[in-house]
């Protein structure tokens, strides 16, 4: 028995020592990151609204700037100007549309951003920036700041949309993509729950993987050790308690009921009082919701914003 216990403990200890090696191999084997193809020609503005149908030159200039920025930042940039057809699209459908559109244009887990600019007439308008690959980590902390800055240039929900305002907003957006790009990496990571993928840097290399990032690994290792320690201590003290001496016989077994005699056994009523308290009433409600499904399995980050 003792030999078995020692063998088991040794095996578990060995497994624990191999944890970092095993997790490194696992991450290396499932890195889905496709990087950037180096081709900026697919980066563009899709004018579904037809806002620049009367001003092709402005659209061409903007497309040129988009491609220049894409080359500079080494990532795909796609801007979709949603027209009236998308007026009744739900917010969650917008997210799915953005993610899937990006994947279908550039491929899954490539580096890039997809900007869904809602000028469909929907109120409130729902803009969305879908990030993919490295862009997930580059912009995960600055999405809200980008939306806030763009609010100054974009029309309010339901108001008239002017091409110049949108063009100016898009130029600002491209500038913000440059200024907000955070390439520091470090231990930060992002987890896309719908695809189950993690985005992180490890050993200077970027990973899109279903294996956990180093920072999360550390958290899991520490919490697992704490949980193991707590369980081991509980078992130790419970078993130790069971090996204590059990209580002795209660002396009441020696009392003779026949020979025990009461000389006085009185329960005299003294007083009575009744108190009352009002019961506070409470009420509650319920909420529910739903969602859609992805056509692609690429991992995405990003955020939405209502105007």
């Amino acid at each position, binding site marked *: 028995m003792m030999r078995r*216990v020692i063998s088991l403990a040794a095996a578990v200890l060995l497994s624990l020592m191999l944890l970092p090696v095993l997790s490194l191999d696992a991450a290396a084997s499932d890195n889905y990151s496709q990087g950037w193809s180096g081709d900026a020609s697919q980066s563009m503005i899709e004018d579904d609204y037809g806002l620049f149908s009367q001003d092709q030159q402005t659209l061409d200039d903007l497309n040129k700037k988009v491609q220049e920025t894409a080359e500079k930042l080494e990532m795909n940039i796609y801007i979709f100007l949603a027209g009236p057809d998308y007026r009744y699209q739900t917010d969650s459908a917008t997210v799915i549309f953005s993610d899937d559109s990006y994947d279908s244009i550039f491929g899954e887990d490539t580096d890039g951003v997809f900007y869904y600019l809602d000028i469909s007439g929907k109120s409130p308008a729902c803009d969305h920036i879908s990030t993919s690959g490295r862009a997930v980590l580059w912009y995960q902390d600055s999405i809200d700041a980008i939306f806030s800055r763009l609010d100054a240039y974009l029309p309010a929900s339901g108001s008239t949309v002017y091409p110049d305002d949108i063009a100016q907003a898009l130029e600002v957006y491209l500038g913000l993509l440059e200024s907000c790009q955070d390439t520091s990496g470090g231990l930060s990571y992002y987890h896309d729950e719908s695809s189950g993928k993690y985005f992180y840097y490890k050993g200077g290399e970027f990973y899109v993987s279903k294996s956990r990032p180093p920072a999360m690994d550390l958290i899991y290792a520490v919490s697992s050790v704490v949980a193991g320690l707590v369980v081991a201590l509980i078992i130790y003290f419970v078993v130790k308690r069971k090996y204590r001496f059990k209580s002795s016989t*209660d002396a009441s077994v020696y009392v003779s009921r026949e020979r025990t005699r009461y000389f006085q056994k009185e329960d005299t009523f003294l007083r009575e009082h009744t108190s009352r308290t009002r019961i506070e009433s409470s009420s509650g409600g319920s909420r529910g919701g739903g969602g859609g499904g992805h056509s692609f399995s690429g991992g995405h980050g990003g955020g939405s914003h209502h105007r």
Partner: protein
Amino acid sequence: MDAAQYKCPNCNAELKFDPATQKLSCDYCLSAFTIDQIKEIYAQQETALPKEEQQAQDDFAEHTNLYHCTSCGADIMADDQQTATFCYYCHNPVILSGKLTGDFKPSKIIGFKITREEALNKFRKWVSKRWFIPPDFNTDEQLEKMTGLYVPFWVADCDIMADYEAIGKKIRSWTTGNYHYTETKEYRVVRKVRVTSLGIPADGESKIEDLLMESIEPFDYSELKDFSMSYFSGFFADKYDVDKAAVFPRIKDRATKASQGVIRKSVGNYSSLSVKRENYDIQKTDLQYMMLPVWFMTYRYGGKVYEFALNGQTGKLAGTPPLNKKKLRLVCAAIGLAITVIGYFFGGRI
């Protein structure tokens, strides 16, 4: 009159003369006697010993050998037909130290009903439920040490006068409409009761843990027999080293607790009780010296002696199981490591 010459007829403690009451009083059992009363009791005792009893005491003294353990100091009695070779407590050799006086002859005895084989089976069953015992605890060599031992007991019949007064509350709650009502009724609870406890035992052996002996109780006194040397055949007996006076506080404490139990039971239907007065006075104690059958074993582990006792009449077993801490630590470490590994690899995925 020199009071120190007299001992309490109830508990055998020394009587002291109290100038205030002009009586001889006992500090242990709080009995009090006039000088005439004590003289009369002593005179009766001197003439009360019948010839047969005197003969029995003489036989006991003649046919009982006393063995002494030089290692732990235990005194073991055995009849002159058998020879004690080792100490039941520390398992070291014992030496014949002489004969006993008739004072150590018990008046009553309960013979062994549980055989050695039955005792060993019960012990093995008890051990089998415990995983973390040392490996040599359950070996034949260790089980050889199980000894059939007659343990000296002082068994007392006690009368305790309990005087109890409390304020009892009965609380009832209900809800009507939007209101919650609480009704409190108060009662004055008085109990004056004489509680008679019969046969409270206290072992007269300082070496054996008192709690261990209390844990294998109760014995069935309906099977008590007059002492006979023939009961010792094949067994050993312990010579008492705790006398009547020394066991009296234990007896008093247990009798008081038994009386408290009677009171608690009779006032059990109150929601709460605020005790105003609670006195327990021992009024009468009759002590009897007897031998009760116990299968006894000790085990030395980690510098500590673990005692096990099994009631030789009912088979009730008690003892502290030795804990193999090294083994427990290893198992806990293995479980802890397994949880760590499972948590690390599968955490967040289950």
